[in-house]
């Protein structure tokens, strides 16, 4: 039987995902046995695409958990340094790697990027402040940089980040997420944080990668 390409082709352990974990991303929460049948049909008919918005939400939830399950494991680098990083997250180069074929099934790049952030970055233990900045790369025969992610670290409640990009000012409050357009290859930003730090500093200016997505600022992590 030839394999047909699909959103979940990159994973061979989808059947091991817990239904409770998938359901935790969904509102309203569907019945777990229906969710299990849905996932099983995705494995059986990998080429099929979702027709409805609720089905797309389930697909994105499955993808979050699949990425999480197949993301970098603690201690991996220590034991297998030669093998480098994970297919979806290069920790050394701080890149999120999104296979371009995923866009055939989830055309909204922002939704797809959010899934990768939720699965791979949000609950990730940060070992140094360089992990506050990630580059988003669409992987194919030729990779394409489409933007950057900033993860400001707020100290407590009520943190605010003021950002200036291409002469425009933006305010990002703690717990919020914002997409700022930044279509150039490289964009200069300047920021100032109240009750928090980014890249170890309260205030700084530097260049980031831009692209067709832009700059994602995720203030949701504590």
């Amino acid at each position, binding site marked *: *039987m*030839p394999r*047909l390409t699909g959103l979940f082709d990159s994973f061979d352990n*989808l*059947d091991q995902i817990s239904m409770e974990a998938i359901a935790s991303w969904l509102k309203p929460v569907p019945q777990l*046995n*229906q969710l*299990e*049948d*849905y*996932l*099983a*049909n*995705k*494995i*059986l*008919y990998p*080429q*099929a*695409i*979702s*027709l*409805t*918005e609720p*089905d*797309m939400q389930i*697909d994105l939830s499955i993808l979050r958990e699949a990425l999480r399950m197949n993301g970098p494991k603690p201690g991996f680098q220590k034991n297998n340094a030669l093998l480098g990083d994970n297919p979806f997250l290069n920790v050394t180069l701080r890149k999120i790697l999104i296979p371009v074929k995923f866009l*055939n*099934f*989830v*055309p*909204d790049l922002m*939704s797809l990027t959010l899934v990768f952030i939720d699965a791979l970055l949000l609950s990730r233990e940060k070992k140094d402040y360089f992990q506050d900045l990630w580059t988003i790369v669409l992987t194919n025969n030729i990779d394409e940089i489409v933007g950057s992610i900033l993860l400001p670290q707020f100290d407590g409640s009520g943190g605010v980040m003021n950002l200036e990009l291409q002469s425009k000012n933006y305010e990002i409050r703690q717990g919020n997420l914002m997409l700022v357009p930044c279509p150039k290859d490289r964009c200069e930003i300047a920021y100032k944080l109240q009750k928090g730090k980014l890249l170890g500093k309260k205030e700084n200016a530097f260049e980031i990668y831009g692209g067709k997505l832009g700059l994602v600022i995720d203030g949701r992590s504590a």
Partner: protein
Amino acid sequence: MKHLAPLRMRVEKDVITRVARVLVGKGVLNVSVGQQVTPPEIIGMATISAGFRTLDLSTLLSVSPQEVEKLLVKKIGQRIYKGELLAFKKGWLIGGKKVLTSPTDGVLDFLNNKTGELKIAFLPKKVNLPAGVYGIVEVVDKERGQVIIRTQVTRIYGMFGSGRSRDGILHILGKKDGLISKSAIQTEYDDCVLVGGSLFFKDAISACISAGVNGIITGGIDAKDYKGMAGGRLVFPKKLDNDIGTSIVVCEGFGSVPIGTDIFEILSGYEGKFVFIDGNKALISLPSPLSSSLVKIKNTKLPELQNNDLILDVGQIKGDLELKSGLKVRVVGNSYLGEQGKLVAINDSLTLLPSGARDYLVTVETARRKIQVPVANLEIMV
């Protein structure tokens, strides 16, 4: 623009193939290579060695274990037949009367007074092996008690399944979209192959195993139940064979999905007839009921067998084919799963679906409605 879709073999009519008929125990085969056989012809006889069955009479009669012995109608050591009175408890005005009959032929072997459990030893039984098909005997393997017969069958390819190759009389339980629960499974379905509707519940599958049902054909199954019988994994195509005591072929997918009309119509024509089912290969073989098939069987040569082993070359996906109006198609995925119909139109431009995805839409005319589905969610039926 050219749109391709996978070509799925669902039904293959009048195929010359080999089937294996195997004795259920030690016995004799009374056919020879080259012999022509007909379905009722007895080609061997086996003796099933004795086993036993334990009945918890204390629970069944609702009495203490010590009281069981005096309620037995037969004494230990006596022979009893299936359906014969085994134990009787008088009731009162408000009820409590209990009548127990023997579930099997056997000898009352032992009663445990501490637990109230009765052991019935089975009587050794002689079982005839009918040919089941019109065909020509190709191999007689006396060591394995197996006869391989060249015959003509109609093959049905399910999507997936579980269980080794078995056979039995086909019985259709109801409509193609019915839900099959435990209450639908009766003891007389022993050795049958049951055709359900859109879903066999777990308790129905368990009841089939208890009743000695040889096979189950269904449109859908719950993923959890299938995982339970396939070693906890969902891997397609399957890498490891497994067996839970009955063979299951699932024709459509997971959840409640009616059996496709193409398959159900053919199965309906085989009600009460002898069929083969191989769950691990997701294959159902329906032997030709016509004696005239012997002409084709005689004139068809098959590749040589190796080590007398029956290895079937089965596959469902036969490559891709260009989608064209008039083709018979089947919908896959989680919306409209298993619906079948005729492709009537293909859109020229991409459509933005409510999910946010984009694809070319096609219009499919089913038996009761017209639906629009993306090209990616179609299979061409053969």
